[in-house]
């Protein structure tokens, strides 16, 4: 099964090289899709392997796929597939000399994330995370406008500084492991209990590493790069960043938490993650209330969800399966939304919510999936975010963090109201355009001639096109809708992945 560890690293790199080498544009555009599919396929293979009880590894244990890694790899692949496939219809790519590099960078980005979740060595994982910054830097700056350059600059500076802090933490953890005689950075070694690790250094190292990775995970107060980068990047890239890059950073936090928990107990990071989570929720709430830009709206919603996941991580073992399911649900939903936001931006030509009105009447092909995905995002069942949130809340009260969860609920409510208001403002209502009388009745939406209140004010035929592939969005939403109801094998996989982190089996 070890070859499945190679696939997600090698296939994207090869495809990236092919994309760069030029050749057919059509083929090059399929490169990222192929990479995602490869990652997803190997993720599924590894899922099968860990469910069968094996832990494939490679390169003398440098790469390992325990249940958590396999699961995260699956998430990376799935979200990648939705973003890249959904982004196919997208005219984001500047034609000409940069087109190939765009596709190549996405493939490399996927490979870097795969490496981050598969690496057994913290240092290697750190390098992979930093590599994601490097690859996405150009993707964020892809549009080559002033604002995309600004976003890219902020992203690189803030992201690298944050990750540098994480490196400092990792260095301290490494220093702490000198007590074992053989200093190591292996997850497997370090997360064993009963090691003679220096608790002071582990505490400091853990705290700094979590703080550093929190930057990439978009947790307040280190989140500042996120709204700018997400709003300026091409939609598929935003989807990838929001859907999985943040989650990969969270994955690192969860791993580090396992190490510190074994040495100094859960309390220290619990406080830190609770504060970070609540602060993220607060920031998201505060800036969503009067948000004006729908891509930034999605970005702040990512901060919110990462905050909620951080609260879940703070709660600990009982909430971990819910957090992991959250990663998948949020990833797929947010990727769908970013893909849609890209299409809306493309056809409407504006990211301002005020300028996008009555989408449901004018462009039902975009508005209907947008509304469904927003429903999933704010936590309506049957979508899996609902179960994750409930799982976290129940586990939180169970773990004695009732106050934290209570505050989180209040903030979630504010966020919910703000998101609803903004979504309604974008989609619901009558178009402002002056009606052109005498247009035939078959242009009515859903045969919705209104016998009660007379003629519909709009006469422009609604645009039913979805402006890009429909299937990936449908699959993503369908998957989030049903995944929470699959006890076998999803439930088992989640339980095993949580067990890797010291959760309940």
């Amino acid at each position: 099964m070890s070859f499945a560890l190679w696939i997600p690293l090698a296939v994207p790199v090869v495809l990236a090289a092919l994309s760069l080498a030029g050749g057919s544009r059509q083929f090059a555009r399929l490169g990222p899709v192929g990479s995602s599919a490869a990652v997803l396929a190997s993720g599924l293979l590894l899922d099968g392997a860990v469910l069968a009880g094996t832990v494939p590894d490679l390169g003398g244990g440098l790469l390992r796929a325990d249940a958590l890694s396999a699961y995260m790899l699956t998430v990376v692949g799935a979200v990648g597939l939705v973003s890249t496939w959904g982004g196919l219809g997208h005219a984001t790519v500047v034609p000409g000399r940069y087109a190939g590099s765009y596709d190549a960078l996405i493939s490399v980005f996927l490979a870097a994330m795969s490496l981050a979740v598969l690496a057994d060595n913290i240092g290697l994982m750190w390098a992979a995370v930093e590599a994601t910054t490097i690859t996405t830097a150009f993707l964020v700056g892809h549009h080559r406008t002033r604002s995309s350059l600004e976003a890219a600059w902020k992203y690189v500076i803030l992201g690298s500084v944050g990750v540098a802090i994480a490196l400092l933490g990792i260095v301290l953890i490494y220093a702490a492991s000198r007590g074992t005689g053989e200093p190591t950075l292996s997850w497997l070694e370090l997360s064993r209990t009963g090691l003679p690790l220096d608790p002071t250094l582990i505490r400091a190292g853990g705290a700094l590493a979590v703080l550093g990775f929190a930057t990439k995970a978009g947790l307040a107060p280190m989140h500042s790069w996120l709204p700018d980068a997400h709003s300026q990047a091409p939609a598929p890239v935003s989807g990838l960043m929001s859907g999985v890059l943040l989650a990969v950073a969270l994955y690192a936090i969860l791993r580090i938490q396992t190490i510190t928990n074994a040495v100094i107990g859960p309390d220290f990071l619990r406080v830190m993650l609770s504060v970070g989570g609540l602060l993220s929720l607060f920031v998201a709430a505060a800036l969503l209330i009067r948000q004006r830009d729908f891509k930034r709206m999605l970005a702040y919603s990512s901060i919110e969800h990462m905050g909620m996941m951080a609260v879940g991580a703070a709660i600990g073992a009982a909430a971990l399966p819910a957090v992991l399911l959250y990663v998948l649900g949020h990833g797929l939903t947010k990727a769908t939304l970013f893909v849609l936001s890209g299409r809306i931006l493309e056809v409407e030509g504006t990211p301002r919510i005020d300028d996008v009105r009555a989408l449901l009447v004018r462009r039902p092909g975009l508005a209907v999936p947008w509304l469904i995905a927003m429903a999933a995002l704010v936590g309506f069942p049957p979508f899996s975010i609902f179960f994750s949130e409930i799982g976290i809340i129940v586990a939180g009260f169970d773990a004695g963090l009732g106050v934290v969860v209570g505050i989180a609920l209040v903030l979630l409510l504010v966020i919910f109201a703000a998101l609803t208001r903004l979504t309604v403002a974008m989609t619901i209502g009558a178009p402002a355009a002056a009606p052109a009388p005498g247009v035939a009745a078959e242009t009515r939406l859903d045969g919705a001639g209104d016998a009660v209140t007379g003629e519909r004010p709009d006469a422009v035929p609604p645009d039913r096109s979805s402006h890009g592939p429909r299937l990936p969005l449908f699959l993503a939403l369908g998957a989030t809708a049903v995944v929470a109801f699959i006890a076998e094998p999803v439930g088992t996989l989640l339980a095993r992945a949580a067990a890797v982190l010291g959760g309940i089996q």
Partner: protein
Amino acid sequence: MTSVAAGMLGQVLLMLTAVAAALLTSSRWRSRVSGILCALLAGAGVVTGALALFGGRGSLTIPTALPLDPLVLSPDRLGGLVMLVVSVVGLLASLFGIGSARVASASRTAWVSMAVFLFGMQLVPAATDVVSFLLFWEIMTLGSTALLLAHHATRGTVASALVWYSAMSQLSFFFVVAGFAVLAGVTGGTGFAALATLDPASWQASLAFVLLLLGFGGKAELVPLHVWVPRVLPEAPGHVAAAMSGAMVNIGVYGALLVCVRLLPNGPAWWGVLVMALGAVSALYGILQASVASNLKVLLAYSTTENMGLVFLGLGASVLLRGDHATGAADAALLAALLLMVSHAAFKATLFLGAGAVARSTGEMNLDRLGGLGSRMPWTAAAFGAAALGAAALPVTGGFVAEWMLLQALVHGSRVGGEVVSVTASVAMPLAVAVIALTAGLALLTFVKAYGIAFLARPRSVKAKQAREVPVIMRVPLAIGAILVVGLGLLPGPLAEALASALGPAFRPDVRTIGLAGIDARGIDVVLDPTTLLALAAVLLVPVLMAVLASARRHPTRVSPLPWAGGGSRLRPRMQYTATSYAEPLVRVFDDVLRPTRDVEVTHVGESRYLVERVHVEQSVSDVIETRLYRPVLILAQRFGVRARRAQNGSIHRYLSYSFLALLVVLIVVSL
């Protein structure tokens, strides 16, 4: 698999079929196909609910990927009752909805969400654990929210209604989640059986109780969480409003019953006082707003707040009295709450369907522009009239029996065997009686106004003049609803026995059937037999009718084109009393509570101060709770939202300082 389990599985399958059918059928057939499927879905709910109510058992386990306690659907008798009630309303609403073909409320979205809404609502009472309860609760909320979209393109107010509804629903939801989570956190399980092990005297129990009460109260449209109601229900098509106001509120009541009867029985007395206070305030405020409303649907919406207030009043009284060991009266109050819930479902669904029929025929919901519909829409008028009797708690309707039972329970509650049970009860009971009496009086005025202004007298607008009766498919649910309203009032004995059995052994009120179908509440020693009362009235009617007929043969009625009207001859329909003027005396009496805004504009003739050409008076009553409680909070939040933008002002230096400060704080903390 038992028949109850099969029934629930059938609901799942029917829901999926209905959703698929709504998506796939053409607009020409959609309403018929989806309507019938929704009706079948509701029918499955009726059957399952009835089976469960009469003791059928069966369970359905929902698989889940999270390591939660198993999600099991297994309705007990009480759950069966609620499922039955909401399904019956859902059935009527679905049938009525078929008639809405070729209007906006027949869109794909509308029918998909109708199926989802009914499905969620019908299965909430089947849940036996927190997560599945919340799951179906939110499915219900999602379905009902999407249902509001029907007229979004033609009415600007839909958008704000949607936002209000979603936000307030979510507020309720979070209250419920938090309440359940507190219970689950203390007891360590999410099954209702596990939650019920908590000692009601602990502070956690009280915290959970208050949270759950607020959450369920929000769904039951209680003050001050009712603010969405007057915005949302007028925007919903008639059958949707019927399903929301007739059925969905019952889920709120069910939740409260679940807490008071199943999870935290025998709580401290102050819980009861709290519930009573919430109910009393809601009842009074709701009916006051209803009595001054001019929009028919707003009026009905506020009346729901009133009725739910009374239900909670009964529930609270039962908690309080049970704490004081006045068990007979306590159980009677609980029974009254259930009776009111059931009859409210019947009459409110019928009223909203009637309002929907009026809206369909006239396109008008403002009572000030209706009138004279009684002769133009006789079926609707008759059904609406019967349901209005129920809402006004007049005999012989279910509403009357319920309110009678409630009053009897309260009157018998403060003393057992001549001894005062407690100071709290002795203060609370008379006040509650007064509240109910005032509420009932105002309800009377409200529904006289609603019926009299809309269906009697002369049409106040062209649309009302041209109104025609709705098609048969819409008349059928109206007729069934009206029959249910009266039927529940005529057969209180068997109904009460069934309700008593639903409450289970520990809370079983001692009621029997007496006479033909009368009710004999042994616990508080009172009897009511509406059938006999009706028979007596019929006997008395015979001589009167004979006198009428005898007189009519010799003196036939003459029809004059003009009413006498004190001698005035140029009487136009505009000179009639309108709904606004009808409520004017009341607005004056309750000026301090309602705080109406009046605009008087006087146009003088030329220079003269004494000759008036035209006086324009405009009076509107807004929701005081919205303007005084919610508005300031919202304005503050908006201001805060604007101010918070400064935190994200674009300066990378500022962003770096955030990170820098965080780093310094972490360094200082780790070295402490």
